[in-house]
C-alpha cells in the first residue's frame, strides 16, 4: 500500500514537472524580431535627372543635351524611370552643395543626378556629375570628365554607365556601338551594306557601299575591329575592318566556303566554319600568323561557333544528331557534348560575355524564339517569340540581347521587313531599335572605353 501512496505522488510530481517543462521550454529567450522580405516590385527605379548646369549659353545647351541622352539611355534599359522635369520642386541647376533631399523624396525620386558643364580656358569641355541617394542623403558617386566638346555624347554615355553600374552593381553598356547589315530594295535585288551606329542610334554611318554582299559582322572583344563576310564573286571571304582607320583587310583565302567568323575573347584568333568538299567543320585562324587549326571532324554540318568569355570552351551548332542542336566543347575541340534537348531546333548559339548563359535561336512549331540556357543545357528560357527572330548578340554586360525580327511576307510581295530589336535577359523590355533602313544581323561592340 505504501507503494501505492507513493506512486501517485511520484506521478503528480512528474506531471507537474512535465507541465513546467512544457511551459518553460516554450518560452526561450526572445530573440530580436526577424522578418524575411522575399518579394518586392520590379518597377523601374524612379530617378531624377537634372540638366547639367552650364555657365554660358553653349554649355547650358550641352548640359541639357547630356542629361537628355542620359535619361533616354536609362529609360531604354527598362530598369529606370526618369521623372518628368515638370515635377521637380528644387531646380537642379541651382543646387550648389547638397540637394534638398526632402524635395526629391517628395516627388518619389530614389536617386538624383546633378552636375555641371564648363568650358575650360583651352576650349575643352569639363563635365562633372554627382549621383545622390535621396533617402540615405549621400552622394553615391561623382566623376569629372574633360574632353573635346564634340565628344559630349560619349560623356553622356559614360555618365549613364557610371549611374547604371552604381545602382545595379552591373557594368553599363551605353558607351557601345552596334554594327549591323542595313538592307534596302526589293527582295530579289536587296542592297546590303555594313552600317555602324551608337547603341542609341546616334552617329549612324555606312561602312560599305553595297556593291558586294556583306554578312555576319562581329565585333572584336578587344579592339575597335569588325570581322565580316563579303562575297567576292561567288565566294565569301573573311574581312577585318578597323573602325578607327577605315582599313579593310582580307583575313585569308580559304579552300572552301567560310561562314560565321567570330573573334576569340583575346581578339587574336577568329573562329569560323569552313566547308571543304561539302562538309563544314569548325576552324580557328590566328589573326597574325594566319595559322589554321581544325577543331571538329564530323561528317555533319558544324557551324556558328562562339567562344566562352574565358576562352576555355566553345559552343557551336551541329546537325550530327539528325536535327540542329547546340553543342559545347573544349577550346581544342575535345569533349564535344550536346546540351540542347528541348522540343524543336536550335541554332546560332552565342556565349554571354559574363559567361553564365548561352543565347540561341530556337525554331519550334512554326515559330522562332530567342532564348537562353546555361552552358550545361539547364535552365532554358525563351525570351521572345515571333514569325522570325534570329541572330542574338549580347550587350557587353551580358544583360541585354539584340536580335533581328522579320515580318512575314505577304502574297502581294509586301511585308518581309526586317528590323533590330532588343530584349532584357528577364524577358521584359522588348523594344525596337530604330535604324534608318531595314536592319539585320546586329553585333554589339564591347565597351568603347575598354577596347582601345
Amino acid at each position: 500500500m505504501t507503494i501505492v501512496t507513493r506512486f501517485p505522488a511520484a506521478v503528480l510530481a512528474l506531471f507537474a514537472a512535465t507541465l513546467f517543462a512544457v511551459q518553460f521550454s516554450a518560452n526561450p529567450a526572445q530573440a530580436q524580431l526577424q522578418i524575411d522580405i522575399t518579394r518586392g516590385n520590379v518597377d523601374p527605379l524612379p530617378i531624377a535627372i537634372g540638366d547639367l548646369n552650364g555657365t554660358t549659353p553653349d554649355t547650358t545647351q550641352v548640359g541639357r543635351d547630356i542629361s537628355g541622352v542620359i535619361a533616354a539611355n536609362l529609360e531604354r534599359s527598362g530598369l529606370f524611370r526618369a521623372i518628368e522635369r515638370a515635377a521637380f520642386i528644387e531646380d537642379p541647376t541651382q543646387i550648389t552643395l547638397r540637394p534638398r533631399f526632402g524635395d526629391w523624396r517628395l516627388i518619389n525620386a530614389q536617386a538624383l543626378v546633378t552636375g555641371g558643364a564648363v568650358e575650360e580656358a583651352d576650349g575643352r569641355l569639363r563635365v562633372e556629375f554627382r549621383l545622390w541617394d535621396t533617402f540615405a542623403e549621400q552622394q553615391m558617386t561623382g566623376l569629372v570628365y574633360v574632353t573635346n566638346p564634340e565628344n559630349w555624347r560619349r560623356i553622356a554615355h559614360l555618365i549613364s554607365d557610371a549611374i547604371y553600374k552604381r545602382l545595379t552593381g552591373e557594368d553599363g553598356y551605353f558607351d557601345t556601338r552596334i554594327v549591323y547589315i542595313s538592307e534596302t530594295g526589293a527582295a530579289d535585288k536587296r542592297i546590303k551594306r555594313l552600317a555602324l551606329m551608337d547603341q542609341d542610334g546616334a552617329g549612324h554611318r555606312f561602312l560599305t557601299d553595297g556593291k558586294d554582299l556583306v554578312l555576319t559582322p562581329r565585333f572584336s572583344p578587344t579592339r575597335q575591329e569588325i570581322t565580316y563576310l563579303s562575297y567576292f564573286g561567288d565566294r565569301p571571304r573573311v574581312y577585318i575592318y578597323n573602325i578607327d582607320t577605315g582599313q579593310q583587310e582580307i583575313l585569308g583565302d580559304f579552300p572552301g566556303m567560310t561562314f560565321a567568323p567570330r573573334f576569340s575573347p583575346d581578339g587574336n584568333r577568329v573562329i569560323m566554319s569552313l566547308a571543304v568538299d561539302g562538309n563544314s567543320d569548325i576552324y580557328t585562324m590566328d589573326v597574325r600568323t594566319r595559322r589554321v587549326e581544325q577543331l571538329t571532324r564530323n561528317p555533319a554540318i558544324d557551324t556558328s561557333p562562339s567562344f566562352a568569355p574565358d576562352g576555355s570552351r566553345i559552343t557551336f551548332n551541329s546537325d550530327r544528331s539528325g536535327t540542329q542542336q547546340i553543342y559545347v566543347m573544349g577550346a581544342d575541340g575535345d569533349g564535344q557534348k550536346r546540351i540542347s534537348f528541348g522540343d524543336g531546333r536550335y541554332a546560332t548559339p552565342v556565349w554571354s560575355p559574363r559567361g553564365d548563359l548561352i543565347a540561341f535561336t530556337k525554331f519550334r512549331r512554326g515559330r522562332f524564339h530567342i532564348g537562353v540556357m546555361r552552358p550545361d543545357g539547364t535552365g532554358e528560357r525563351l525570351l521572345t517569340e515571333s514569325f522570325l527572330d534570329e541572330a542574338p548578340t549580347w550587350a557587353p554586360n551580358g544583360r541585354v540581347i539584340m536580335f533581328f525580327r522579320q515580318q512575314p511576307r505577304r502574297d502581294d510581295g509586301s511585308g518581309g521587313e526586317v528590323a533590330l530589336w532588343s530584349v532584357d535577359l528577364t524577358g521584359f523590355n522588348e523594344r525596337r531599335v530604330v535604324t534608318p533602313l531595314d536592319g539585320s544581323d546586329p553585333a554589339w561592340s564591347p565597351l568603347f572605353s575598354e577596347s582601345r
Partner: protein
Amino acid sequence: MRGAIGISVAFHLALATAAWTGLPTLFQDTIQEETPIIVELVAIAEETRAAPETPQEAPKPEPEAAKPEPVKAEPKPPPPPPPAAKPAPPAPEKVAALPPPPKPAPKPEAAPPPPPETRVAPEPPEQRRTKIRPKTKPEPPKKTPRFDASRIAVLIDKTRKDEALETEPDEAPKKFLQPPPVDDSPVQRAAIGNRLTISEVDAIRYQIEQCWNVPAGARDARDLVIKIRINLKPDGSLKGPPVILDRDRMDDGFFRAAAESARRAVQRCTPLKNLPTSKYDRWQEITLTFNPREMLGG
C-alpha cells in the same frame, strides 16, 4: 480498503486538479505557434512597459554611436580629392572621381551635427512623414488605399489584386487595431497582448515589400541576401539610419547595389503603419532579411 479508496480518491482529485489547471494551458500552448508569454512578462517586470521612454533611451546611445559610422563613410572619401588633380591623362577623355561631399569643409561641420538633428529629433521625422505621405499615396501602394492586415494574403498575392480591391477593408482594421483592451486587463495582456502575431509581422513585411525595387537580373541574384537592422520609435519611424549588416561585402558592387536598394525600401516605407504600440518592445528592433530568390526564380 478504505485506505485504498481514500488514496484513490485523493489520487483522482489530484489528477483532476492537475488536469483542470494543466490541460487548458497545454491546449493553449499547442494552439499558440508564436513565442509565448512568460518571458514577455519578465521583460515587462524589468523594464516597465508602461514607460517605453526608458528602454527607448537606453538603446539610443547605440544607434547614435552607430550613426557616425555611415556618416563617417562620407567624410572619409573626401581624401579622394587628389584624384581630381588627375585630369592630366593624355587620353581624349579624362576621368576623375568627384569627392563625395561637395565641399569638404562644410561637410564635416554639417554632417555630424545635422544628421542627429534631422534623424533623431522627433520633430523633423514627423515633418518628413507628413510631407511624404501625400506623395506616397499616388505611389504604387495607392492601389490598396487602406491597409487591411487581415487580408494580407489577398493583398500580397498580385493575382488576386482585384479581389483585394473589391472588398471593403473598413471592418477588419478595427479588429487589428484593438490592442487597447489588452492593456485593461493585465491577465489578458500577459496571455496574448504582448506578442506580435503573425499578421502583424506580415504587416511589416507587406509594407516593406511594397517599397522594395528588387535588383532584378543581376548575376547570382539568388545569393544576394541582405540583412538590415532597424530601430524604430513607438510611432513606427526610424530611430536612426538602417544598418546594413555584413558591411565587409559592400566592396562588391552587386551586393552594395542590392543592400542600398533594401535600405531605400526601409527608408521609403517608414514610418511603418498599423503597429500596435502596446507591443512596442517586440518591434522596436527588427532585423530584416531581404532575399530576392523567390522572385527571381532562383
